[in-house]
């Protein structure tokens, strides 16, 4: 049986790689993708905790479902903003977002 730590290490690795991508890349769509990676890292941790917790009620999994829904909403809105921005400026760089007026 794989110990809990291994799952958690995997989660941390995924989270920090996602964070790296968010910080380093310029393309907005890629930043959104990296945010998804971070969320996935969190999900792994939650499910791992849920599986190894002693109460066995699986509350961790419920949080995962909430995160799924929030991630879907976030991607929908994020990509809509991206496309609107692209139509406006023809660029897809994060640098474009320094001002918030359309």
């Amino acid at each position, binding site marked *: 049986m794989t110990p809990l730590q291994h799952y958690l290490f995997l989660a941390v690795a995924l989270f920090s790689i996602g964070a790296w991508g968010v910080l380093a890349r310029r393309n907005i769509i890629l930043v959104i993708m990296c945010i998804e990676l971070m969320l996935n890292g969190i999900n792994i941790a939650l499910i791992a905790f849920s599986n190894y917790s002693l109460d066995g009620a699986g509350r961790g999994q419920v949080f995962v479902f909430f995160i799924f829904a929030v991630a879907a909403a976030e991607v929908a809105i994020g990509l809509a903003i991206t496309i609107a921005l692209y139509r406006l*400026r023809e660029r897809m760089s994060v640098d474009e977002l320094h001002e918030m007026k359309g």
Partner: protein
Amino acid sequence: MTSQDQMAPKRPYLKLEEMILNMGPQHPATHGVLRLVLHLNGEMIVKVDPVLGYLHRGLEKLAENRTYYQFLAMLSRLDYLANIFMEWPLVRCIEGLMEIEVPRRAEYLRIIVAELNRITSHQMALGDFMLNLGAGTPMFWVFRDRERIVDLLELLTGQRMMYNYMRVGGVRYDIPEGFEAECRSFLAGFPAKIDEYEKLITDNEIFLARTLGVGIIERDEAIDYGLTGPNLRASGVSWDLRKDDAYSAYNDFDFGIPIGKHGDCFDRYKCRVEEMRQSLRIIEQALDNLPEGPVNVKLPPMLRPPAGEKYRAVEGPRGEWGNFLVSNGGLRPYRLKMRDPNFVAISTLPRILPGYKIADMIAIGGSMDFMLGGADR
């Protein structure tokens, strides 16, 4: 990079991305080798540039280097679905210049062949249209029934495609033995086949949704563009050379001309279907009242029409096919100009297509039934 960004002009409106799509010359839905340069916004057509000339054979120029008899054999290569109608106008031009009286029986035979050919052409239009809309079965039904007509034409002319049947002053052969019985059995059976097509196509909701109100050509617009044939009549203009010019012996027959109202794809389709029924009536009457007599007149071995000019047109399945012949009294035409309905139909595309989607464009192209063999000459 920031300086670059600041240089980019700020647009007050959302940008519309335009994509240029080269449809054709090799494309399943362009009826030959037509190239359409489509400017698209998404799937919406913004602008259309038809590019012609991929099938150009220079037939008008070739005519000036050949005697009349030689050139008559080349004519049926033009619109390869309505070959008889390609031969007819030139024959009529020469007859007009030389003032030849065509025997009555020959005129009737010409009409029989022409109407049979009209039916095959409309059938092909129907099958192609439905193939463009994504239904393959009508094409096969059409070919099944077209085979019988082509057999009939073979009996009469000896050819299945390039009939070469028209002669100056008449037709090439008299009807062979057994043709009339064959033809009558075909006439008896064919209306049921047309009903069969209609049952499959006309009542289909998807077909209606694809064609009703799509590709509308207004009455005035159709006249302005010089559209002829079913495309014009679908727009509500009652104009048919068989009635308005009453050439050949068409005055002897009782037949109707279907007229559409809205000028959309559905009307064009429906007009063609009805025209097939009317053609059957004409053939039946022609068979009933076929006069006796010769089918040809005696002519010199070399034709020398007197100097002068003549324009003669016939009502082909795609519209008015006309030839303008200028003769200087020599062995060869001085100039031959052909008026072609397909070219006109294609020239309307830049006007009608913008605002429609690609799928609509396919439907409109199919319903207009242009044939590049005629348009490029």
